[in-house]
């Protein structure tokens, strides 16, 4: 379906949908524009959500360096497990709270691009923002595997940086974006990204160019590469999948006879 029938006048860019677009236009199409439920299992995000939530609660009422406080918060929510404790401890080793002038958690940011066209609205939820040493230090907590060496290699980070830039500029601060990997298996975080004015302009132009590409889409053709498709959450149903199959939807694993339920084509 042509882009003009699907895209909003002001295209919404989020870290996850931009990541999807850079991975495969058809993935963006199925998820961001058609809003289809995944047809294939993806890694569970449950633990990640819990850890994010606990880190926010720990910082709102106290400090991550305070072991007693951390234990109290985790116990109060019934998740005082060794795994979660270790993740919080790994965060505490990198947390700038003690040097920070101020902090905020789960911060929603938005920034509009009007000209040159096409227009887009970048929005992002930032896990934590600390202000210290003339820096707006934005953190994204990660509980999965690490696949890159530098944050600037991550497309999602470009949307985060663009959306955050105005906040840093308004306070006369430099912007730094850091991805904190909390899994014990990940030894080091990727190199954090500190952006100057030129780099921020380049990011804006990159995002604008991507939105321009979206408007040029007629077919939303998928990339059809096995390495990408085999882990895609739409691999079973995607028109262009290199790894097609049967969707994992529970309704398709029941005993009812599909022949009795056949639909009839128009005409």
């Amino acid at each position, binding site marked *: *379906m042509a882009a003009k*029938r*699907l*895209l*909003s*006048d*002001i295209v*919404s860019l*989020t870290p996850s949908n931009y990541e999807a677009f850079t991975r495969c236009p058809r993935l963006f199409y*199925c998820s961001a*524009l*058609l*809003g*289809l*439920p*995944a*047809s294939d299992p993806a890694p569970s995000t449950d633990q990640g959500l819990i850890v994010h939530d606990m880190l926010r609660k720990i910082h709102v009422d106290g400090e991550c360096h305070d072991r007693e406080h951390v234990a109290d918060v985790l116990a109060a929510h019934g998740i005082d497990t060794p795994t979660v404790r270790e993740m919080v401890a790994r965060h505490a080793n990198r947390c700038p709270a003690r040097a920070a002038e101020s902090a905020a958690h789960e911060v*929603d*940011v*938005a*920034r*509009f*691009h*009007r*000209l040159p066209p096409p*227009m887009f*609205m970048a*929005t992002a*939820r930032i896990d934590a923002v600390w202000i210290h040493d003339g820096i707006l230090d934005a953190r994204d907590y990660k509980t999965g595997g690490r696949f890159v060496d530098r944050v600037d290699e991550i497309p999602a980070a470009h949307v985060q940086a663009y959306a955050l830039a105005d906040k840093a500029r308004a306070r006369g601060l430099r912007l730094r974006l850091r991805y904190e990997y909390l899994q014990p298996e990940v030894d080091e975080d990727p190199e954090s990204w500190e952006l100057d004015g030129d780099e921020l302009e380049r990011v804006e132009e990159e995002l604008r160019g991507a939105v321009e590409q979206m408007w040029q889409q007629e077919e939303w053709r998928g990339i059809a590469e096995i390495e990408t498709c085999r882990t895609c959450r*739409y691999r079973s*149903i*995607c*028109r262009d999948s290199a790894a097609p199959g049967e*969707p994992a*939807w*529970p*309704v*398709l694993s*029941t005993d*009812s006879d*599909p022949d*009795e*339920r*056949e*639909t*009839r*084509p*128009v005409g």
Partner: protein
Amino acid sequence: MRAPNENDEELPRITPAHLRRADDMCRRRLAREVNGGKRHGNQAGDMRFAVSNRIEADARLAQSELGPPRTEAFVEPRDLEPEQQRLYRAAQRGYLDAFGASSARIAEPEWRTTLPELGVELSSSLGLRAELDDGGRELRKILVGARHDAKLLDPVDVRIALVRTEEWAPVQLEIVAVDVIEQRRATYVPDLDAERAEAHEWIGERVARVLELAADGRPVAGRDCQGCAFISGCQKHPG
């Protein structure tokens, strides 16, 4: 309480999302949605509900007369994308698994309900209003692959259903929410006398709060900017 007609002046339009999260919303967006509706804003893409809308429409046709659903009313949506067609076929199967044995007639859809005492309209799809062959009233809320942690039916859904079905289901109501893809089902049989009175009170209070927040109208840049139809003229986004 009644269905609106074309002679009505435009009333503030309140959605379930406003009732749920008005306190956290950008008040400028809230004001414009409530008072002008999205029809006065920027054009937005609108394909995210194509499959669920089609399933509901076909389910309605399948039981436009009293009886079990006619499977031939579910017509493959060839105008949609191949992925949407796959989802449609699965959803159709799930719908018939859930309701295929039920003899009923499905009433015309209702998208808006006027609450004259509050001076507003409640606006959203009410779901499928099934009139069973024993005279019973069953309100079907159909979900097509919701997140696994999403509730099928929450207290806000129930209150809205109770208020909006007052004329259609005055003495008995069963609310059935089914995710036709995930095969999850929730059923609720309210105590109509007690719960309807409480629902009216709750909605009255929430509507008052929504209108109060909308009257403020101050913009907040953040999560609500995504998909906002009223960016033009917003002081948070001079662009």
